[in-house]
């Protein structure tokens, strides 16, 4: 089956990201396809490229990137939720006249419409919230 996940919890603050990544591994191991993870609400903080967790804790940002690299899962971040929270890629940073950026590929800032599209195009959409 084709799956997508909606992640609404910030990394480390709640278990949402850990749970979503665990579920992602399990569904892939069962032969399903994970098309996309969409980050909304506080979930957009998962895209923070500077995350530097202690070495004995899971590196959630890198785990998302590995999911993309190994399985082609898209990592889409709601742009409206991201901008107000300071999660800007290079294009948005320059559009807002800011120096530097906090989000980079494979995370992509996209509109909320992508979430709606996903809801129609995949077989299962599962939400992980704080």
């Amino acid at each position, binding site marked *: 089956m084709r799956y997508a996940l909606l992640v609404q919890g910030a990394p480390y603050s709640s*278990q949402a990201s850990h*749970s979503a990544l665990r579920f992602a591994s399990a*569904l892939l191991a*069962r032969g399903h396809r994970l098309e996309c993870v969409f980050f909304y609400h506080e979930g957009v903080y998962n895209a923070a490229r500077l995350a530097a967790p202690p070495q004995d804790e899971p590196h959630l940002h890198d785990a998302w990137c590995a999911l993309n690299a190994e399985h082609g899962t898209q990592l889409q971040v709601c742009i409206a939720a991201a901008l107000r929270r300071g999660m800007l890629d290079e294009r948005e940073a320059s559009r807002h006249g800011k120096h530097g950026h906090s989000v980079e590929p494979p995370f992509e800032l996209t509109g909320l419409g992508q979430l709606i599209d996903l809801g129609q195009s995949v077989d299962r*959409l599962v939400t992980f*919230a704080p």
Partner: protein
Amino acid sequence: MILHILNRPPSSSLVYREALAAMSDTDRLLLVEDGVLGALTSQVRHFQQVEGRLFALREDLHARGLEGQCDASVQVVDVDGFVTLTEEADKTVSWF
């Protein structure tokens, strides 16, 4: 059939009532994260109306040291079983 997923315990949050209110007679409920506290024998009364359709995630019980306290009426599944539950359901709804 809908799979409802609940991650808050009845000991501190009332969202379980909303989840239960939304369930049809054939829907299933999976307790995950802190929600697994509701699967303990001392707490499971809150979920009486869905007996036989109540599941709890083994890994989350285990991490909390509570696998032994889980009530016998609850069907304990691992994360692989969580995926199976989503396969078997038409759609999922998360309550938090």
